[in-house]
């Protein structure tokens, strides 16, 4: 799949099939083709396309129009062949002939035909443990009612459309029945080119010769996905790939992104990538940039669709991209052949192709307006399953990335933390950070001691109240900038310093951010001459992880309500500053 070869020329493929060399194949597969059309040319093209993927495919062609004869006969050639994959290729031309018979009941045609197909699936499954690939029907070109066709349920056109939906529906509860969307292949190529009636009449060819390789290609893509060849991660460049311009040169105001003008193409690209992420494809950044510059649009550009959190890995530096892609691969613990690399720069694409074999590196067109279409046309994201976990994959990989870092062979956690080169930026609430502060206030559930959901206006009031010290903390390290990740607010009372809010993003657990901030809070109390710090923990359904937070810092529990609310006191003189592994940047 390295170059994702896209030579789908019919004559070239037929010629190649005559001198096919599968000696280098790493896998074998047995595929049965059952159809009510002719498959004699489909079979060699399939073999050729499979060979390109390193698969030696043995193809069994059932007798013409013998689908049911084969599947209902226990001793049929189909079952003797013991295929791993059975392709059921039903042609709309045959369906049309069936539908247009005078005795056909149009009203029950969808039920009867979809039922017949489902029984065929069941028969195959009761005989062999094969994956079934059911082709759907290409919409016919006859429009007996013109545009009104769609409004007549019993029209041929509406019937075929309904049948396709029904077949899809029936397949959903059957994991081993996959669909080959031949209709989308035909409509993409153009049904005007697709239908070649002369050769249906004389040889039962269901499409023009030139279209046939595209059907074969679709089938191969499905089978390869079923063999586990799936893309899990898209690695993207930033400048001129995710936005127009160069962030390091053009600055935040100079780059183009957003739903207007030159930015539109990049806006669409980001929407496309975000949809991929929601569908379970992990995103990663690989950019030649200063990290701070690379992050800037994600943090500060109002029209960016993608955010830092959408990426499971974020690499921006001046190393060559092959090195960085290897690092991303190790971080995410996936194979090179499950990665796609998107970069507008042909030099970088070639470098990655040369140095990191396996990674899929599509050509990107010169015009960013064509990016999405070019990527989509390659059908890189074929899959054979989708589950709720897919949608959460980014988080899963982020966690995995964290674990792997920790396993990287440090003698101690301290040594590991030291190696991260963490830097903390701490500051009093300011107008600039208020939006993110209130966002974190709204969202943070687990590491949140009191779970007060202060609005932006309430945060602003705290900012202006001089007896309060409301602070935010930002964390960055060698690998990435985590942004604003923690908030602590304290109020100076006559006798005590009271901790009112304490919350942190779980992405930065275990790094000692809380120790760093507790040191700060105690220092603040001492500076104000306050000898005691008071605090409380208010339990919610989600914040059990910080139940003992204050105890860990030497606070004494002085009260506990029946509902589990606890009150804590700390005598500042008793506090031993905790070791931290980060340098400080004041803002």
């Amino acid at each position, binding site marked *: 799949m390295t170059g994702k070869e896209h030579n789908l020329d019919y*004559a070239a493929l037929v010629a190649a099939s005559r001198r096919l060399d599968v000696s280098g194949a790493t896998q074998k597969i047995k595929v049965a083709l059952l159809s009510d059309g002719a498959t004699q*040319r489909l079979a060699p093209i399939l073999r050729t396309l499979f060979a390109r993927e390193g698969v030696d495919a043995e193809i069994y062609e059932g007798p013409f129009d013998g689908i049911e004869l084969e599947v209902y006969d226990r001793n049929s050639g189909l079952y003797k062949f013991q295929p791993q994959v059975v392709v059921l290729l039903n042609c709309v031309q045959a369906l049309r002939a069936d539908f247009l018979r005078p005795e056909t009941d149009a009203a029950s045609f969808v039920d009867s035909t979809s039922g017949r197909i489902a029984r065929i699936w069941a028969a195959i499954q009761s005989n062999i443990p094969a994956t079934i690939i059911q082709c759907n029907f290409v919409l016919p070109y006859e429009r007996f009612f013109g545009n009104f066709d769609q409004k007549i349920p019993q029209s041929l056109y509406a019937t075929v459309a309904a049948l396709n939906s029904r077949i899809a529906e029936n397949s959903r509860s059957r994991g081993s029945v996959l669909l080959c969307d031949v209709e989308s292949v035909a409509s993409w190529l153009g049904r005007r080119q697709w239908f070649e009636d*002369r*050769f249906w*009449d*004389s*040889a039962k*060819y269901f499409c*023009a*010769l030139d279209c046939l390789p595209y059907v074969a290609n679709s089938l191969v893509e499905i089978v390869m996905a079923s063999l586990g060849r799936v893309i899990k991660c898209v690695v993207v460049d930033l400048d001129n790939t995710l936005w127009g311009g160069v962030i390091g040169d053009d600055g935040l105001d100079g780059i183009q992104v957003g739903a207007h003008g030159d930015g539109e193409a990049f806006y669409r690209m980001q929407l496309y990538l975000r949809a991929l992420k929601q569908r379970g494809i992990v995103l990663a950044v690989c950019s030649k940039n200063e990290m701070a510059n690379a992050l800037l649009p994600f943090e500060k550009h109002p029209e960016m669709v993608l955010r830092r959190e959408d990426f499971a890995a974020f690499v921006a530096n001046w190393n060559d991209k092959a090195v960085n892609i290897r690092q991303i691969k190790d971080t995410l613990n996936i194979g090179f052949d499950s990665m796609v690399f998107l970069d507008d720069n042909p030099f970088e694409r070639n470098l990655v192709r040369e140095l990191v074999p396996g990674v899929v590196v599509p050509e990107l067109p010169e015009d960013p307006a064509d990016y999405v279409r070019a990527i989509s046309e390659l059908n890189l994201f074929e899959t054979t399953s989708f589950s709720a976990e897919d949608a959460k994959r980014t988080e899963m990989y982020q966690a995995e990335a964290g674990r792997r870092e920790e396993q990287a062979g440090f003698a101690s956690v301290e040594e590991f933390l030291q190696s991260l080169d963490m830097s903390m930026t701490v500051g009093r609430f300011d107008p600039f950070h208020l939006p993110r502060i209130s966002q974190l206030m709204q969202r943070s559930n687990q590491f949140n001691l009191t779970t007060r959901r202060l609005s932006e206006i309430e945060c602003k009031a705290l900012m202006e109240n001089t007896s309060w010290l409301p602070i935010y903390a930002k964390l960055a390290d060698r690998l990435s900038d985590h942004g604003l990740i923690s908030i602590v607010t304290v109020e100076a009372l006559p006798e005590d310093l009271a901790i009112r809010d304490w919350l942190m993003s779980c992405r930065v657990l275990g790094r000692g951010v809380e120790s760093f901030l507790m040191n700060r809070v105690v220092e603040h109390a001492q500076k104000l001459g306050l000898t005691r710090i008071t605090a409380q923990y208010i339990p919610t359904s989600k914040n059990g992880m910080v139940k003992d937070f204050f105890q860990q810092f030497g606070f004494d529990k002085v009260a506990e309500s029946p509902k589990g609310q606890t009150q804590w006191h700390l005598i500042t003189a008793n506090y031993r500053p905790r070791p931290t592994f980060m340098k400080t940047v004041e803002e």
Partner: protein
Amino acid sequence: MPAMDQTQALQGLTEVFRTVFDQPDLVLHDAMTAADVENWDSLNHIDLIVAVERKFNIKFTTREVAGFQTVGDMAELTAKKVSAAP
């Protein structure tokens, strides 16, 4: 499109035949039939027709496709269609 005679058509057909039947040295004669050319079966016949149509930018009817008896028939009809094309 300029007029084309049968000899010129035969020259063009030779190229197509060589590719479709995978025989780089194939030499065509007017009297040749499917029996004279290795692999000229019904499948390759369709490949051949489509390749000829593409090369000469013409189209044969179903009856014409079925009616070719010799290479000469094909060359003649090809020349005629090319010459008649606007």
